[in-house]
């Protein structure tokens, strides 16, 4: 169970700070969500945590080790990333793609051995992808392909999985299926999960803690109940929402309200 410690990090591409003075601590085995409007720094934060870019100020500790000092393959053994929907224009089969998750463990000219195949098979069984291991990833549906990417992440045998808007191209049934799977991995394998999401309802349903980012800073951080509130959402997103409770799971639920009054004149929409 690996923890993530973020200590006063700031990052900028050119002049403007995209991430400014951010600090938080994710304990091993926790399931966190990051929400916030476009340009609030969510994806940049995820890139920093996977070692893709280095913050100009501050430090990130993965399980107590300074990320900046870790070698790439060593980071890949601890932290795996499930990307957004990606196009792969070469005909790799699903099994080949999942096997690539083993590359941090392999030497330059070394081939996958028996235990690499075992790890890969287990990852594919967990994600229910074994049946299309011989099919090219490019021919899979969006939902199937995202499961292949989880399988690849699992093949890295990581302790932390970072997800970057993983369900943005999936229909509702696949979104739920996807997060059910992630949540099961979180419980059963004690994986630390950090997911960036545009869908506040999904985040509040599945995450134990949520960070609400605004302009590269933490606007609010805490349990879904603390963060997902009408006032905070209005201040950060600039849009009015209604927050009530999911009648089944009791987690907070937002309802979007249109800004122009609707023609059928629902009273909520006309409240000033």
């Amino acid at each position: 169970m690996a923890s993530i410690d973020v200590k006063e990090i700031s990052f900028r591409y050119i002049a403007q700070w995209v991430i400014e003075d951010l600090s938080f601590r994710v304990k091993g085995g926790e399931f966190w969500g990051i929400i916030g409007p476009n340009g609030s720094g969510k994806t940049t934060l995820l890139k920093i945590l996977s070692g893709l870019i280095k913050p100009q100020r501050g430090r990130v500790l993965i399980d107590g080790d300074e990320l900046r000092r870790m070698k790439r393959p060593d980071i890949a053994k601890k932290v795996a990333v499930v990307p957004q929907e990606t196009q792969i224009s070469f005909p790799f089969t699903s099994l080949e793609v999942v096997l690539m998750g083993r590359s941090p463990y392999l030497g330059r000219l070394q081939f996958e051995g028996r235990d690499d195949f075992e790890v890969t098979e287990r990852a594919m069984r967990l994600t229910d992808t074994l049946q299309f291991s011989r099919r090219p990833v490019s021919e899979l549906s969006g939902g199937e392909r995202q499961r292949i990417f989880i399988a690849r992440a699992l093949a890295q045998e990581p302790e932390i999985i970072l997800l970057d808007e993983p369900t943005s191209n999936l229909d509702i049934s696949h979104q739920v299926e996807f997060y059910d799977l992630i949540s099961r991995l979180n419980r059963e394998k004690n994986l630390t999960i950090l997911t960036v999401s545009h869908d506040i309802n999904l985040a509040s349903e599945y995450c134990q803690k949520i960070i609400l980012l605004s302009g590269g800073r933490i606007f609010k951080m805490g349990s879904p109940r603390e963060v997902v509130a009408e006032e905070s959402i209005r201040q950060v997103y600039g849009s009015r929402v209604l927050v009530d409770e999911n009648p089944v799971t009791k987690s907070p639920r937002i309802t979007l309200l249109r800004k122009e009054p609707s023609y059928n004149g629902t009273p909520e929409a006309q409240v000033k």
Partner: protein
Amino acid sequence: MIVSPRKIITVCCLFFCLLLGVILASLSLGAAKIGLPQVLRILIHHAVYFDSPLGPEGLIIISVRLPRILLAGLVGAALAVAGCSFQALLRNPLADPYILGVSSGSALGAVLAILVGFSATSFGMPLASFCGAMITVMLVFHVGKVGRSLHTNTLLLAGVIISSFFSAIIMFVISVVQNEDLSKIVFWLMGDFSSSSYHFILIILPYIVGGIGAIYFNARGLNLILMGEETAVQLGSDVERLKKMAYIFASLITAAGVSVCGLIGFVGLIIPHSVRMLLGPDHRLLIPASTLVGACFLIGSDTIARTIAAPTELPVGAVTATFGAPFFIYLLKRRKV
């Protein structure tokens, strides 16, 4: 399905046998009909008694056809592997070894060599075109670099622009200068193995063998790059180093090949493609298989070029284009690349 050392060795042995077959067939074909048994007898005799004088048929086999075949094989292998690397580097299955301007740089070098009379010596044109190619490579590399990282889109743009700039200079030179030697450039632009010699083979061999070796050494990294650059980093590879490596070595072997025989199109495009369709996209198998198939293909094409309209010789580039262009259109239409 999954690449293993055993599969690589099996496939390579098969293609190596094919290559030997193509070489023998090509040795026996030509203006002077020399049967296969006779070819084998001459080869064995020459291998055993290296210094003994050659008969007329021996001379044709050993001094004329064999160097030409070996050179075509070497160039074919180089172009095919360069194609594999450029396609991985640009994550575009339709990229070819000339896409980043190596061709125009070497053509400019060759034109300038003719202009200053440097082409009178047998090494003049190859040397000049190699230098032209390497200067272009460096130029494109520096334009394509953003900060310390290599930006593939910028690289592509830089290649296209520098390439058309050089083509403009070539056009300018050809139209302004009245030089009879410039007709040589027409042959050069379509590829020509007629001036092959063992010297050329020995000179380009280290570049091509070293370059292919360096690219093969990074074969798994090239697989990862096809998953996207960020993903490749997150899977533990040093993508910046990998991209520079792929660019430099693929350009180097292209330049080495082009310098001795001129521009031969389509090899670097269709060989990686066909091999990928046959054996899958894993570079650990794709690179060695393309090396051998590329060699077979170019030896075959050159054999056709020198025999089909004998005694007239066709430029070998015309032959590869005759096969290559329809195949390319087929690939585009099929859209399963």
